[in-house]
């Protein structure tokens, strides 16, 4: 499950970025800091996360750094469900 979700998230980031290759993107790549994902794309990313996990994301309770890398996204939005 974890592998599939991480793979779907990586594929989304690669597709939306348009420049980074699948080989260049690691699960710990700082995607916000390196502007692989821009602040304008965060809302779109939230919608994709909701689709993947089949449940809404509560934006009001988000903690800082939730979107900083694939690892961080997985930990913030999927790890609980998988446990």
């Amino acid at each position, binding site marked *: 499950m974890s592998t599939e979700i991480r793979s779907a998230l990586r594929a989304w980031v690669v597709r939306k970025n348009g420049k980074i290759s699948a080989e260049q993107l690691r699960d710990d790549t700082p995607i916000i800091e390196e502007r692989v994902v821009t*602040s*304008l794309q965060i809302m*779109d990313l939230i*919608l*994709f996360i*909701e*689709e993947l996990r089949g449940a809404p994301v509560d934006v009001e309770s988000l903690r800082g750094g939730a979107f900083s890398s694939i690892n961080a996204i997985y930990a913030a939005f999927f790890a609980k469900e998988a446990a």
Partner: protein
Amino acid sequence: MTMRPFQKTVDRLCEISRRGYTNPYEAIEWPESLPPDGLCTSPELISIYGTPTYDALTTEQRAKLSFFEAINFYSLNIAGEKPLVEGLASRLHKKRFESYSPYLHHFLDEENKHMIYFGTFCTKYAGRIYPDKKVPLGRREYAEGEEDFLFFAKVMVFEELVDVFNQRMAKDDRLIPVARHINFLHHQDETRHLVFGRQMVHDLFREYAPKWSPEALASVRETIAGYFSATWREYHNPQIYRDTGLSNAYAIYEEGFDHEASRARRRDVSSSCVKLLMNLEVLLEEPVV
């Protein structure tokens, strides 16, 4: 330098607001339920109108979709009006805006009424308001006047965009009466807010932009262009398609957002506001919408 007060305009706007003062709890007759085949959004303004997915829908599905499009439109209006009310309230009786304060009171009052209209429709007929998905970005240092300018410029962009929808839907006799009426009432107040907003954006930009560094000015332009994109993102919402009962909601969202018919609609609705900002040289090129 003090801001050139457009006092006569403000006085006139106050007078019209006082004359047209409405009780938000009596302004709209709320039917107990909505006809299942009634339209709540003009088909041409539906986020996926013109896409293969829309073309394949039955009449019943299109009516249901038009209802949830309205829920999304009203929800994003509420999401846009909350920070607007906060920003207006925080500027009340500040020295710089003192002469405008009588109108700011009307502005606040009318925005609150709009949230009552939109919120009542959503909660009464859908049982909820769609949550705002905007992630608040951290505060940063602003150049002199930049924060006030960005506040009023974003307000103007938001109100100019939604007013195009309101104007078109207020006149659309295919819509059920309550949906037309909400759009009409909103447009009626927005005409005054837009007069005020355009002048405020003009004055603030003329006063402060010459003092900003090239980097600060570029950042302002990027922020405004980005605001267009972010606002349009909210108009396309997978939750609309899920609630309509369509499968693959995210794929429909992506298809809808990327489709040429949608781009053309976004450019069309944005065009008068973009032209205004380009005439003021707030924007030097058309934002990607």
